[in-house]
């Protein structure tokens, strides 16, 4: 279980996350929605160890991982696939995947790493075709797939995805969402930040709404989905 308790984070003197609490139970998909600048990315970065929170706790499987640096957080089995993919675009697809294996809990044998690459290549056949191309030459959709695959190389039990559908064509977005569901069925818990709120909530168990750095709503995804309030926030007025 991943639990965030009263997390507060700031950049310089500017607080962007205030006393945020939420939890993700094993096997669930949980979506966090909210407007731009609400603090979603900061929340994820704080959990993943890229940003030091000023107050609050992050507990992962009972262990306090608050303020642990990112390269150690991934070794606990908690992986962030960041906004905008953040691939190593000057390295090959294969190298990106191999580097992903560094995040494993224990040092992997070469054969184990290769087996894992093979396994992921069957999930993402297009990456196999392009294994020796530079990551920067892939299309947007392929890059997103590679980012996810790179994260999965570490065999994480919990995966956080920050805006995985950003800038992708609708058909690819559907593919990404079905992939997330598949992944979840294999027992991986998912924490999702999405602009595409309704699509995200449709595949989620639970959801949270973040506003101005605070968690203002939480609940079963289906309830949020039918909530006039949420529609109101995203489309304005109640005319829809």
């Amino acid at each position, binding site marked *: 279980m991943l639990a965030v308790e009263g997390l507060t984070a700031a950049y310089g003197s500017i607080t962007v996350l205030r006393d945020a609490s939420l939890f993700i139970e094993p096997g669930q998909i949980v979506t966090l929605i909210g407007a731009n600048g609400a603090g979603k990315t900061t929340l994820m970065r704080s959990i*993943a*160890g*890229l940003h030091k929170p000023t107050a609050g706790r992050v507990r992962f499987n009972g262990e306090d991982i608050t303020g642990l*640096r*990112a*390269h150690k957080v*991934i*070794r606990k089995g908690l*992986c*962030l696939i*960041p906004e905008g993919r*953040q*691939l*190593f*675009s*000057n*390295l090959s697809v294969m*190298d990106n995947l*191999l*580097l*992903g294996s*560094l*995040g*494993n809990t224990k040092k992997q044998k070469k054969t184990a790493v290769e087996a894992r690459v093979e396994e992921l290549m069957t999930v993402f056949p297009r990456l196999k075709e392009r294994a020796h191309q530079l990551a920067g030459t892939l299309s947007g959709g392929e890059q997103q797939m590679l980012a996810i695959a*790179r*994260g999965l*190389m*570490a065999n994480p039990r919990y995966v956080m995805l920050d805006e995985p559908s950003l800038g992708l064509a609708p058909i690819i977005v559907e593919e990404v969402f079905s992939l997330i569901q598949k992944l979840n069925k294999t027992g991986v818990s998912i924490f999702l930040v999405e602009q595409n709120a309704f699509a995200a909530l449709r595949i989620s168990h639970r959801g949270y709404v973040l506003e101005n750095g605070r968690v203002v709503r939480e609940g079963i995804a289906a309830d949020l989905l039918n909530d006039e309030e949420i529609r109101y926030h995203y489309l304005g007025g109640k005319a829809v």
Partner: protein
Amino acid sequence: MDIFWQIIISGITSGSIYALVGLGLGLIYNVSKVINLAQGEFLTFGALLLVSMISFKLPLIIAIPIVLVIAALLGLAFERLAIRPAWQSSTTVLLITTLAVSIILKGIAMLIWGKDPLSLPSFSGEVPLKLGEVVIATQTFWVIGVLLIVAGLSWFFFNRTLAGKAILAVAENRDASALVGINNRLAVQVSFALSALVGALAGAVVTPITFVSYDGGTMIGLKGFIALTLGGMESIWGGIVGGLILGLIEALGAGYISAQFKDLLAFILLIMLLYLRPAGILGGALKKG
């Protein structure tokens, strides 16, 4: 024609030194975005340490590894004591931090080895090799050999080992590298240690050719910076390519135009290149790796 080959050989020799300094600078720059103005001092220390080791009657085969180990430790200490405290600062502050370190290192060198220039006998005898009319000092082979070995090892490290690729990953995207489990701080430390080691190695092999004194590193460090800028700062290989080109141009300029103006030529070339192609020769075309 003989003069031409003589010039080419001398150009490649000094170019190899610039290349080694440029490689070290480029490594640090790409991993930590710091331009290290103390890179030339690594070379000075390598040279002067070797002079001391030899004066203790240590054979080269033992002396050089000791020098390299000390240099690597020096690089680590540099990173820990000067760079890490200033980590969050602006480009200007970081640049001046390395400038301060270069002054301190010069001061230490002066204290230990004095102000007089020192030199060493050639590693394999003073009798030069003659190819027709072209005369080649044996130390030249050492210098070029070291560059070839270092370049080869670097190629292997960055293209064939996961550790090398991890360093390239840090150079490209620090957030992403941390997220896949790479310890960025360790990568920065490794880059400083390797860079100091390469610099010291360059110093060790060049000493028999030129005299080295406590403040001789500044100019060579600058030449390395020019080499890196010529080749392209964003590439690990920029320093090597730029260094060789710089050495050749200097030698050709000195041979065919005027020996007095060889430094001038290098710097004018730099300004012209920055004006025409700020990303350097390799810029964009061939990136990291």
